[in-house]
């Protein structure tokens, strides 16, 4: 255990970026938890006389076309954006890792059918698929989550399937089976936990991608509706004013999006260095 800690410490010392990314993620989670309480203004209260003010001391990120404080809106939106991404990723992780592990363990017909299904999913450009699914299921926030979860599924299924497949005949798996565990127990209690560390990297990288994806969908007008503060829809609303030079309406929520994705991506890269020294680039 102390060797692991030493390794983590060594990686973090050599790579302070990961530490910074971790702090960034922590900051965002904090904003998501406390957003509504620490926001200086009401994120949905309009104040038309103060509309379209550039950033100032009173309004750090300026105000939008209804005079709402952009900083408060960006802050409060963190909760919704992170919640969508987190629930989508955990959903596809839970389903994908379980299905993939059982496929990798059992092989045979189940494996072949799931493989076919994954092939069909992968035959679509994934963002287009998500768009179509939100259209089919109905234009609501929870459907954005389902759509994002489904387009992430193939990666988890393939990954856990491959990882379980190379382990299923190893000595300790045989031992677990020989000592009276059922197949389901072997997969859930022994194989799956063994694959988890490698999947943590995937999860972190995936969170960033899920945020981009959800924001893209709501930028198109799918799922989240105004006046709900959400980064993608804020950019969409600000887009109308960009040709008249109101840059802060796009740049501020855009920067928040970028910051979130950047932190999760860097954290994923850092986790990879910590968990799997062979993959270091």
């Amino acid at each position, binding site marked *: 255990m102390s060797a692991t800690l030493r390794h983590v410490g060594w990686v973090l010392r050599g790579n302070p970026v990961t530490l910074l990314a971790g702090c960034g993620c922590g900051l965002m989670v904090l904003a998501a938890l406390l957003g509504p309480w620490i926001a200086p203004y009401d994120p949905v209260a309009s104040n038309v006389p103060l509309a379209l003010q550039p950033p100032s001391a009173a309004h750090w990120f300026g105000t939008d076309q209804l005079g709402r404080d952009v900083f408060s809106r960006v802050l409060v939106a963190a909760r919704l954006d992170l919640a969508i991404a987190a629930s989508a990723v955990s959903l596809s992780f839970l389903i994908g890792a379980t299905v993939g592990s059982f496929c990798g363990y059992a092989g045979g017909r189940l494996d072949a059918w799931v493989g*076919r*299904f994954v*092939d*069909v999913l*992968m*035959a*679509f*450009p*994934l*963002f*287009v*698929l998500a*768009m*179509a*699914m939100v*259209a*089919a*299921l*109905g234009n609501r926030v929870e459907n954005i989550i389902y759509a994002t979860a489904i387009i992430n599924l193939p990666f988890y299924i393939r990954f856990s399937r491959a990882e379980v497949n190379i382990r299923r005949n190893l000595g300790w798996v045989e031992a677990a089976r020989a000592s009276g565990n059922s197949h389901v127990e072997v997969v859930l209690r022994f194989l799956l936990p063994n694959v988890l560390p490698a999947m943590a990297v995937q999860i972190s990288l995936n969170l*960033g991608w899920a945020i*981009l994806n959800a*924001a*893209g969908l709501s*930028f*198109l*007008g*799918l799922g989240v509706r105004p006046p709900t503060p959400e980064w*993608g829809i804020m*950019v*969409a609303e*600000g*887009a109308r004013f*960009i*040709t*008249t*030079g109101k*840059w802060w309406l*796009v*740049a501020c929520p*855009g920067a928040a*999006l*970028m910051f979130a*994705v*950047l932190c999760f*991506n*860097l954290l994923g890269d850092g986790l990879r260095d910590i968990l799997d020294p062979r993959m270091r*680039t």
Partner: protein
Amino acid sequence: MRGIAGRAGRRFLSSLPALLGVLVFTFLLMRVLPGDPAIFFASGPNAGQAEIEDIRRRMGLDKPVPEQLLLYLRDVATGNLGRSMTTGQPVLNDLRGRLPASLELTFCALLIALVLAVPLGILAALRPGSLLDHGVRMLCTLGVCVPTFVSGLLLIYVLYYLLGIAPDPTGRIDIFASQPPTVTGFLLVDAALAGDWEAWWAAASQLVLPACTMALFVLAPLARMTRASMLAVLTSDFVRTGEALGLSRRRVILVYALRNALLPVITIMGIVFSTMLGANVLVEKVFSWPGVASYALDALLSSDYAPVQGFVLLMASIFVLVNLVVDLLYGLADPRVSIG
């Protein structure tokens, strides 16, 4: 040559199950979509129950689902993708008219991304740890984090509003410019064919911003992959042998190393293209680009589902085709590979 044709045939056959899956999926999509299509096609909101029943029968909606699937497959095979309610045109015609705009944008973006990413990746790999290497790495890290819709809007702000270099960011060609006669639908090609260089310039200047926006997004994976594989190739035996034989560095790198280094880059082209088809939707929305994606999006937001279905089918078919081409290119670039 026969080998290539044979492989193309085999690969095509092996992508058929995926295509069939795509068809079934788009069919299910239509079945799941809210609303009764028969009511859409009825004469008006006050159409009688009898009329709706009649339309249901004519559309085959009263038949069992498997039979409807077969009917759908027949419709697709005969090019009948339904009719758009917003434009009143058959979806196939609409898609055909708008596809060149999307393809022109996507291909130009891909070209820009490749022209920038490959040299950057090579240069970074030649001097690992240098300032340039760090610069490229930072560009790659940031590039995948900026959503296309944000980078597009910021480019508009800087180049159109602040600097005034770029033209008004709406549409494919300035409304006051003369439109070249339509031959291929690709404005750049049409204008060049007509010898109308003024129109060519107008179209090209409209294209630059959206194409760059898309290129920025896929620049990162391409440059990163080029750098990584170039680094690996440069330490290999044949590069050392080439250098030992006294070949010029330029020849070793550009002829022998590059060809091998590009193989992994070709492999990820499929994924890159998939990202681009998705990013296309966002970019077309930002720049009011009259392509298939903005068409589908408009239809989607006005609950007109036939175009959406046609669009999804089209995108998936293009993607299957692109993967086929990528496989074939891979075989051409690396004769050792024979994909069964």
